[in-house]
């Protein structure tokens, strides 16, 4: 089951996102950033894209290499 879920996960996720984005339009706050239609979708996407980009950028700089002396 896990394998099947893994295979179809992207489409399931995208479908769920689309449904929630539409449903969310009817349950927005009256004022503030939470009232913006795509506030949470944009925030969620950025919360992943920015850290991953930072990791790819900084990893070569902050990696000392060698053995992982901390593990186990």
């Amino acid at each position, binding site marked *: 089951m896990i394998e099947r879920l893994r295979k179809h996960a992207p489409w399931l996720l995208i479908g769920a996102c689309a449904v929630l984005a539409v449903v969310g339009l009817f349950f927005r706050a009256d004022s503030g950033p939470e009232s913006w239609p795509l506030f949470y979708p944009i925030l969620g996407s950025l919360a992943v894209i920015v850290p991953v980009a930072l990791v790819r950028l900084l990893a070569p700089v902050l990696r000392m290499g060698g053995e992982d002396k*901390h593990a186990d």
Partner: protein
Amino acid sequence: MPIEMAPVGILLLGALIAAVVPARIAALTTLITPLAAAWAALTLLKPGSTATWSIMAYQLEPVRADHFSLVMVGLFLFAALAAALYGLGIRDRLQHASLLLYIAGGTGAVLAGDMISFFVFFELIGLGGTLLVLAARTPEASAAAVRYLVFQVTAGLTLLAGILTVASSSGDWSFRAMDLQESGAWLMMLAFGIKAGIPLLHGWIVDAYPKASLIGLAVLVAVTTKVGIYGLAHVFAGEGILVGVGTVMALWPLFYTLVENDLKRVVAYAMLVQLGLMVAGVGVGSAIALDGVAMHIVMDVLFKMTLFMALGVVLLRVGTTRADRLGGLWRHMPLTTTFVAVAVAANVALPLTGGFISKKTLLAGIEYGEVPVVVWAVLVSLSAMGTLYAGVRVLWEGFLKPPGSRQPASIDDAPAPMAAAMGLLVVALLLTGTVPGLTDWLRPQASDYTPLYAGKIIGHMQMLLFSLAAYVLLVRAGFGLPRSRPATWLDAEWLYRRALPTIAGVARRALISLRNRALQIIGRMSTPGHGRVSATLERSWPIGLMGLWAAALLAALLLFGIRSA
């Protein structure tokens, strides 16, 4: 000793018994003691309970219970019970006795009504924690325990200096709210900050916790840092500087949660993210924010203990917690995988878990405070980032992804006591998230905010699902996280492991060179030279020249005195 100290006394007595009886009985003693202490606490303590104790010239107040301190006492005893259950099969008196000592320190600290009592228990936490790390009995753990102790003692001495300064200027020894204008208050804030793991002083957490003994791994997350947060909330609630400190504290560890190979270190860094959120909430200081802090302390202990316990089981069964060697454990360890999944869900504040109630209350407190909207948005997005470090790194890499090549062919699930302990924590997480009103008792300020309405839940679900979808698309496009591999990552510890020794070495060499140069000059001045009539110091000096030098020195002193005045 006043009768109200009975819960702490029972824990200390339990620690003493566990230290001397055979290991099997020590494990049972450790299981029974938190229950006895909880019974004593329920019988003797309620908000407003106080007890005084005269020692020498001092009137101590070792118990001054309020709603917040009783929440913390309940949490520590529950954590002790879960950890004792987890360690029921472990035959090691040191681990059992240290656990009870550690919990006694935490319980005593949050009940303390005066600064001397608080300091004593604050130090006891450090001692108990050090022993829990040391009990792993490996060279790495011993070294980490020494570094852990150094930080605990530094925090303790800083606190003592702050207490003495505050008490000598105000004459008040009570453990009370202060503002930073009071002399010595900064030192106390720094001491709590060290305990809570503020940026640059957090290295000991990710260093020591992953190397601790199994019981230590399970319980260390519950007390030390939480007493730091409690201290900040009790004394410095509403200090605006903490909002900035907390935000940096929450963002700093994110990089390391995404790159560390050892999943224990990933979880330790993830804990720092949550602690940062709490510190920011303390900085706001409103009733909703402080209720959010209290609830989130409880939930963070529940889900982080579950994650550390699960990794302890993985270490026990597989022999490693390195991400590059794990994967596919869900086939062998379905129960542990389920517990981890619930803990990860609570970590990302999925609705129906206690994490949703606590984190959303805390974030609402920050939203309603005078905090820039960008800071609030960044703190809100931490849950989405949690899908990366908790969901992708711990759950996916540890349990769901295709297995690593070096795994044993047959792996058993958690032993029964360990599974029961994780089950206890997970049930608590689910109950607090599903039973209406159950978290009300965890609100010391009795605010009535609830995040359980459609707009909040749908908005949060949008954020989580879009973050997951964004990551899946990044992976498909070949821009996912780098593959996990063994490495050492530079963190703030670089400052005291590399920078400070280098600076000290350069300064030492400069001083030695300066001394040698001075000795050469003095030698030249005092030794009759070859072919010279006399050395400089052997010459006769005219009285007029001496008088001139004396006048110059006096003039310099006069100028200095005028500037100082």
